[in-house]
């Protein structure tokens, strides 16, 4: 804390080891807390996106016949739902994290950044479990692995950076103004329908494609589809590079993701000293 000039013992000299330990312990507790008191526990983390998938697939895949366009519609839809669920989950859990740990914030001084970071990490664990289900779907569709699949790693990193940035901004805002919770619920729905999750991006007119690709979520999702679901129809796995005609276009959503994190960090650090008394 900036207002205290503290010369602490030798242990604290290791400035990174302590926050890292705290982060690990709190993230483990967060993940445990999510399903504490529920009979099926972690099963719910798989069941919820699968249930959402089944509903949407029944309505849009069958009734609206989107499923007849491509053999890969189900796995493509599931991938979209899982990626979006991580975004919605990480940002919402992150937003609530400070307020939920109120008693800790009021009684101990520690880097507050640990709390929302831990919340997004526990969402990332759920995301990893859901990702395993997507992999099963991919294998079921007889899609074989390729060397390019390693590109999934930087894409997921970009997605996490974006989610963390949004979570930092929302958590600090939420301490000041609880209305943010209601607004974010609506914004999440808007983002869901403004992203090519249910419908293939090829359904959008060209100018609209360019707009939705500004969202890092869309860029990551379409890049994932083009890498992992390579046998799918081309309009279903359009990437930002193909839409703008240059790979450099990818820099727009990537910069937005990075900028979100930077803004989140700066805003969070500015608000941090006041959390204990404003919460």
């Amino acid at each position, binding site marked *: 804390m900036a207002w205290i000039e503290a010369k602490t013992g030798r242990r604290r000299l290791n400035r990174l080891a302590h926050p890292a330990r705290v982060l690990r312990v709190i993230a483990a507790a967060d993940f445990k*807390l999510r399903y504490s008191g529920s009979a099926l526990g972690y099963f719910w983390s798989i069941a919820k996106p699968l249930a959402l998938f089944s509903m949407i697939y029944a309505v849009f895949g069958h009734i609206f016949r989107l499923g007849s366009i491509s053999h890969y519609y189900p796995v493509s839809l599931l991938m979209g739902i899982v990626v979006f669920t991580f975004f919605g989950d990480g940002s919402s859990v992150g937003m609530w994290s400070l307020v939920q740990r109120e008693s800790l914030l009021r009684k101990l001084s520690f880097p507050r950044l640990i709390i929302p970071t831990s919340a997004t990490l526990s969402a990332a664990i759920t995301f990893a479990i859901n990702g395993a289900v997507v992999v099963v779907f991919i294998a079921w569709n007889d899609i074989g692995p390729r060397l390019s699949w390693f590109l999934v790693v930087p894409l997921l990193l970009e997605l996490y950076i974006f989610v963390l940035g949004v979570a930092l901004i929302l958590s600090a805002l939420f301490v000041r103004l609880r209305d943010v919770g209601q607004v974010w619920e609506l914004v999440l729905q808007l983002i869901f329908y403004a992203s090519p999750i249910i419908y293939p991006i090829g359904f959008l007119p060209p100018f609209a494609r360019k707009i939705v690709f500004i969202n890092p979520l869309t860029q990551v999702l379409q890049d994932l589809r083009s890498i992992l679901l390579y046998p799918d129809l081309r309009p279903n796995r359009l990437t930002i590079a193909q839409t703008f005609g240059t790979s450099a276009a990818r820099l727009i959503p990537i910069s937005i993701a990075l900028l979100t994190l930077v803004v989140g960090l700066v805003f969070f650090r500015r608000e941090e*000293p006041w959390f204990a008394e404003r919460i």
Partner: protein
Amino acid sequence: MLSGSSAIEVNDVAKAFRLPHHRRTTIKDHLLHPFERTTFERYVALDGVTFEVKAGEFFGIIGANGSGKSTLLKIIAGIYPPNRGSVRVEGLLSPFIELGVGFNPELSARDNVRINGTLLGLTGRELSRRFDDIIAFAELEHFVDQKLKNFSSGMQLRLAFSIAIQVDFQILVLDEVLAVGDQRFQEKCFATFERFREEEKTIVFVSHDLSAMGRFCDRMLLLERGNVRSYGDPAEVLAAYAVINAA
């Protein structure tokens, strides 16, 4: 025993809070003035407080309710930023504020000890080595895997205190530790304090138990409405407090 070097230096610390005025109480008021700004009143909790705690001493802070004791402890513990002034802390500080260290009611005692012990600076290895001591001191051997929400306030207090004293602190900050524990636990706390005195640890202690304060403190501070009223020799400070209370 008092080496003369300072453990905590508090220099001209001032702190004010904004108290919102809830003048709009009815639905009609909300409908008529939806965007009217809430007005705030400034409440000055601390108004230029200066003192020093020497390394290895037992330092007591007394004062009536609302005199600023807890706010002062929170600023020393790094939880609140002061509006003015500075605080210097020399050594690892272990705080015990507002009857606990912020437990999570949905987690077991075991998990809570792990979280709070880690937050206070214990490593995983130290924690597993000291875990039994923490539970034994709190006398909660049978409740280790119970959720904290099932604990009585006395049990939570004992657990929080046990964790706070198991950290390798140089400075222990205690806010009203004697308020909830029973007679026997209080005696155990006093015995622990004696041990800390021998180990030359610094303790900052807030309590309304004036006889205990007189018994343990090397020096004291009396706060009155955010100002230092008396500072130094315990007998003098307690006498000054008696004068305030008589008035």
